[in-house]
């Protein structure tokens, strides 16, 4: 009974008399915070970024310093033991975070920017421009890209930045198509027509009115892109085509664990980098899931 009464009382309040209308951003963060795994994922991701930035202060040893203890088991000096040439595993793990974060976010920043601009342009120009751009994306998406990446990396030389560049080169088409699709829908909206009738210029319409409305799927896609790029980098480094030793990367640390004897007798060599890859990718994907729910306009 009291619930009914309060409902009636609540209904009598005119929406206009409510104070401070809730902003879109606040609504989204409220929805995101409800997603527990996403919040945990975000915490892990932020921690990884923190570790990457402050690696020199956090690492107990130099990641390149070779000591006399080869493949030593974890001890009070070397918390996660040492590798086959006597370098501290924990320190290498911490420095490898830098590689992962750089590749993950660098690749995504690069291809999301490029893909978004291409997608916007393609959709807004329409006609033959759109046709040609979309066929180019088709070609890129049809490539067996792991093979091409291996070839390109071997030609250009396997540095961190070639890796970022090459991964970005094969990732922009998906964003371009995504953006193009949203823009084609948004172009028909009444508020875009209203904007044109108010005398706004085309670049202003595209960047200030269409892009913010297309942002939600871009952000979600970019988040998953970070995880995918980190996975790809680890894979390539594992194959020896990515980040080259002595620079530490989770992928090339796993390369050391290719023999049965290491697998069985020296788990500190392969378990930590493996767990780091798993945790990182999982955390970022959780963040992506949370963002997708938070940014979903249907809620």
């Amino acid at each position: 009974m009291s619930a009914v009464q309060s409902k009636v009382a609540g209904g009598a309040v005119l929406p206009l008399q409510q104070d401070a209308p809730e902003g879109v951003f606040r609504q989204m963060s409220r929805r995101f915070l409800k997603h527990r795994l996403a919040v945990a994922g975000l915490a892990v991701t932020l921690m990884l970024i923190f570790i990457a930035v402050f690696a020199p202060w956090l690492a107990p040893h130099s990641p390149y310093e070779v000591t006399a203890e080869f493949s030593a088991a974890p001890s009070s000096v070397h918390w996660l033991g040492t590798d086959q040439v006597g370098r501290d595993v924990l320190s290498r793990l911490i420095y490898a975070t830098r590689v992962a974060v750089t590749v993950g976010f660098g690749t995504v920043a690069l291809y999301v920017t490029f893909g978004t601009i291409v997608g916007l342009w393609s959709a807004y120009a329409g006609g033959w421009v759109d046709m040609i751009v979309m066929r180019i994306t088709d070609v890129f998406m049809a490539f067996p890209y792991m093979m091409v990446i291996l070839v390109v990396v071997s030609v250009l030389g396997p540095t961190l930045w070639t890796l970022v560049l090459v991964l970005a080169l094969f990732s922009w088409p998906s964003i371009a198509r995504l953006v193009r699709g949203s823009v084609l829908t948004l172009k028909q909206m009444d508020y875009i027509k209203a904007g044109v009738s108010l005398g706004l210029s085309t670049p202003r319409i595209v960047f200030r009115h269409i892009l913010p409305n297309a942002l939600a799927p871009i952000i979600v896609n970019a988040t998953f892109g970070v995880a995918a790029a980190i996975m790809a980098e680890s894979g390539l480094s594992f194959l020896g085509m990515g980040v080259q030793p002595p620079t530490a990367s989770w992928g090339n640390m796993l390369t050391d664990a290719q023999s049965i004897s290491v697998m069985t007798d020296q788990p500190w060599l392969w378990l930590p980098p493996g767990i780091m890859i798993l945790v990182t990718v999982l955390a970022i994907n959780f963040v992506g899931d949370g963002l997708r729910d938070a940014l979903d306009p249907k809620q």
Partner: protein
Amino acid sequence: MLLELKDMKTVFKTDRGEVTSVDGVSLRVGKGETIGIVGESGCGKSVTSLSIMRLLGKSGRIKEGEILFMGQDLAKLPEAELRLIRGGDIAMIFQEPMTSLNPVFTIGNQLTEAIQLHTDLRGKAAAGYAVQMLEKVGIPRPEAMMKSYPHSLSGGMRQRVMIAMALSCKPKLLIADEPTTALDVTIQAQILNLMKELREEMGASIMLITHDLGVIAEMADKVVVMYAGQVVEETDVFTLFEQPLHPYTQGLMKSIPHIEAEAEETLASIPGAVPPLTNMPKGCRFQPRCAFAAARCQAEAPALLPVQEGHDVRCWMAQEPEQWKVRKEEAV
């Protein structure tokens, strides 16, 4: 004359070739005047208004004729110059207030954007002016409303915001495309009253596009009746309601429900529908639906001619009653 359309013809490219949507429309809007454009859906009212602003999209274009606005031909003006007129000298409000505001920006954001684009006001001054405009269109607590997002507003409130936005740059001509169609009846009256008040205050001319003759009677000085892309009758609002001459206008009048009507009486309707643009009938375009159609109507298309001072009609029956009767008897 503020705006003068001379034989404007708007065409659209389609898969089946070029289609004429508006065929030779001529009309004049004086300063401070309100002109109503009436007709069924698909008769070219909206395309006429969109042609003036050149908002026809990629497939549409103005093929012939002139759109003289304060002496400039808008049909030939370069895009950059036209952009200054859009939202500046000519503003537009649309039918759907629910979707005409960008959902990701606040009301204040969108209002000040328009103001900064067409006036010298910047920053705080622009925001202050925006609040003033919201107050003018009768929005309660305008300061708080500046921070609201469109989704928290009702349709009527949004249409008020649209009107505030359209009028913020003091346009000389306001084009209102079915401004009240999507609103509740009570809100409709409020919006119409608001538009009337603002017309008096700002001295703007209004081009009101509607299918609602009640709205026309309430607002317009002059009325243009359109059918199948053509003007079929043009006169002042009193003459139109007292003495409609075109059978189509008469049909529209008869299809308005009257409060005194007997309960058993069925409401009159015009049989048939507007012919598709790709397949216009021969002769008069209204002839297949017209109760008075004669042989001449099927053979020859009538022109829009004055039958009285300030009363133009496109109909043989009104223009040459004697001859039309003779022809009709011949046909029978």
